[in-house]
């Protein structure tokens, strides 16, 4: 039974539509009622198939010894051996670095860290629920573990492994990028001419292909043929090769990574600074505050929530760093500029799929715990204040 098509407005009178609906309409109505599922199903399916399932499958890899055979892969369950290899076994130096001998300074600082963390844990015992306590215990355990590695390797004068190299890139890199990015945003938020020009210009490095950035930086950082050669000559450093020493190589990585990522912080912080209500600043100006005073007391507190969110987003991306060390130094010298992702790739190339998956999982755990902790204890409290 077809619904009569209204010919003019007189046909669309109250009480004029037929009671029944045709089967075509029934199908359309069923679709509309289940629209919720249809809208969200593609996204959920994609994420399940291409993200969730591979992650679980990857755990199977990590728990097995995997071999290529004639007809595909062969898995042999080996429990946590791949993981243990990273911490205690053959990969320990590569992953954790040298952790002995531990110096006195290392011991002292480790003791300080443990005491602080335990005290913080104790203080939250009274005010937190079970779930929160569990979360805090995980954060505390990670903090103590990382503290131990730091004290045993770096602070004792030993070399560090890919775990701490990654953390160095994240922590030191984010700090540098945040400082410079916010500084640039502050400069650009002054009454200057051409603010949009600078905004466009400063944004470009963020979008340039990281691979391209890697090669460009490698060319520029070349001490014999690159543009710095005359400068180094002037400073008497002709024979210095930055890629020969672990720490200088790492610093150069951070500098090159910063070239690409400072724009991100710059754009977000500039937008945040521009969005501080003009009224507040003017009221402070009328009340007689100096520019510095206004920035410290009026502008900055309103910008802090955005700042910590931006920092979190940057940190999440920073853990995945791979292109730059791969191209500029191939992970060298030795393995001192390898990030964990790169470490995993190299192990995969060496056909040890199990260890590769194990390292990838360790990176995942590290990222999740560090970022979730930062989010819970810093970002949420700032956003709540606002």
């Amino acid at each position, binding site marked *: 039974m077809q619904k009569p098509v209204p010919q003019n407005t007189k046909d669309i009178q109250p009480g004029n539509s037929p009671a029944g609906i045709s089967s075509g309409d029934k199908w359309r109505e069923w*679709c*509309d009622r289940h*629209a*919720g599922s249809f*809208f*969200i199903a*593609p*996204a959920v399916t*994609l*994420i399940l198939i*291409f*993200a*969730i*399932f*591979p*992650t*679980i*499958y990857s755990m*199977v890899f990590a728990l*097995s010894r995997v071999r290529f055979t004639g007809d595909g*892969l062969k*898995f042999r369950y080996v429990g946590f051996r791949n993981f243990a290899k990273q911490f205690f076994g053959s990969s320990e130096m590569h992953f954790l670095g040298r952790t002995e001998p531990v110096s006195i300074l290392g011991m002292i600082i480790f003791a300080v860290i443990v005491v602080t963390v335990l005290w913080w844990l104790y203080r939250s015992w009274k005010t937190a629920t079970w779930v929160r306590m569990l979360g805090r215990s995980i954060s505390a355990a990670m903090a103590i573990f990382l503290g131990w590695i730091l004290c045993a390797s770096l602070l004792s004068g030993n070399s560090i492994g890919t775990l701490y190299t990654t953390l160095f890139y994240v922590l030191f890199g984010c700090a540098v990028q945040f400082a410079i990015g916010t*500084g*640039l945003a502050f*400069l650009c938020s*002054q009454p*200057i001419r051409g603010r*949009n020009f600078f*905004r466009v*210009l*400063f*944004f*470009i490095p*963020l*979008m*340039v*292909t990281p*691979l*391209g950035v890697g090669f*460009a930086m490698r*060319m520029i950082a070349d001490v*014999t*043929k690159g*543009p710095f050669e005359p400068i180094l000559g002037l400073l008497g450093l002709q024979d210095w090769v930055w890629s020969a020493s672990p720490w200088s190589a790492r610093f150069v990585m951070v500098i090159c990574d910063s*070239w690409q990522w400072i724009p991100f912080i710059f754009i977000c912080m500039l*937008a945040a600074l*521009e*969005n501080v209500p003009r009224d507040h600043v003017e009221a402070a*100006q009328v009340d007689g505050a100096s520019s510095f005073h206004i920035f410290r007391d009026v502008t900055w507190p309103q910008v802090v929530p955005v700042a910590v*969110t931006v920092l979190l987003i940057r940190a999440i991306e920073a*853990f*995945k760093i*791979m292109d730059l060390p791969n191209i500029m130094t191939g992970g060298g010298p030795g393995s001192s500029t390898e990030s964990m*992702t790169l470490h995993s790739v190299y192990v995969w190339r060496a056909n040890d799929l199990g260890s*590769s998956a194990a390292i*990838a999982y360790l*990176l*995942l755990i590290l*990222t999740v715990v560090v*970022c979730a902790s930062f989010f819970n204890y810093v970002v949420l409290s700032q956003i709540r204040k606002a």
Partner: protein
Amino acid sequence: MKDVIVKFDPQNRSLMERLFEPPAIGKMAPFTKVVVYSFLAIWSFFVLFPIYWVIITSFKDAAAVNQGPNFIPFIDFQPTLDAWRINFTADPYCDIASIARQIYLLAHNSVIFVLSPFVSLQPMEPQICKIYLAFTNSVVISIISTIFCVAVGSMAAYALARIQYKPKFGNIMIFVLLILAVTLMTTYSGIPWWMSSAVALALFFFLARSIGRHFKMSLGNGDILFWMISQRILPPIVVVVPLYVMFQAVGLLDTHLALILLYAVANLPIVVWLMHDFFANLPIELEESAQLDGATRFGIFWEIVMPLTRPGLAATTLLILVLNWNEYLFAVFLATVKVQTMPIMVAAKNTGEKGVLWWEMCAVTVVMIIPVIIMSILLTRFISKGVLLGAVKG
């Protein structure tokens, strides 16, 4: 407090005051001006120099590159078009006729791609102009993947903004357990993956209907949103190896489809995050009035809501386009022969027998980054209108 006023005399300002005090509201003191502009100039130089270096290196020859740094064209060295010739016209398959044939093949293959479940793909010619191949692969994959990603992500974001979901926690647990079971089954016993997946899916629906009824605790939209957005934390390295195995089992290794799907999933969290913010900020009265007039959900989405978010949609699309264009890790793991994208081609230049041929690599790099720079300039104009800020604040 009166002292403050008496001391200040606008007519006779001391030198210190003239230098350090702003002359009026909305202007900077001369000293501040100098400091600010010089820092900005320094940073501008810092930003532009690597790009400048790459561009001029693409115009150098071997001697100009290897004999120390040469900074200025025509003064330090003579620019040549060698690198460009080698990449473009010196390649035997880069003449007009070949390119015409390849464009035809591309159109032909696109049609077949759409019909792929029913028709088998005709392979592209193996000997074709390399840079052309890489460029078109990049263009095709980026554009299709972006459209797909933005479409799926917008729909999900809209649904999460307007429709209330209450998935039961128990059902989710069952689902996860079943995934685990399927993985273990496929790995350790000989059951083919499609069989175990089908059984698991059937089992899930059955269990959800029967036991699922009794589960009380359910999650909300906020949790689903958080789950989707937090996928971004997942380091791609965790999933590439299993994906390699998966794609190989399905025969999708080294195909366009594989990369398109992967890129879409990798950037889905960003689209959902940004678009959800836009949709949530639209006044709901518009949609309610359309509902009263009898429009379907999809009708409202397509006719009313999407046009209203055009600037945000455009900004998001540009951003995802750039991210897809730059993607390297997935491409290098899963597709190296037939589906080379620009980044892979650039990386391939890295292994020269006589050492890296920097000038050639720079030429290819310039081709790779010029589109991105243009897109980023467009994107900045959106950002300066404050379009994407709301998302960051949330």
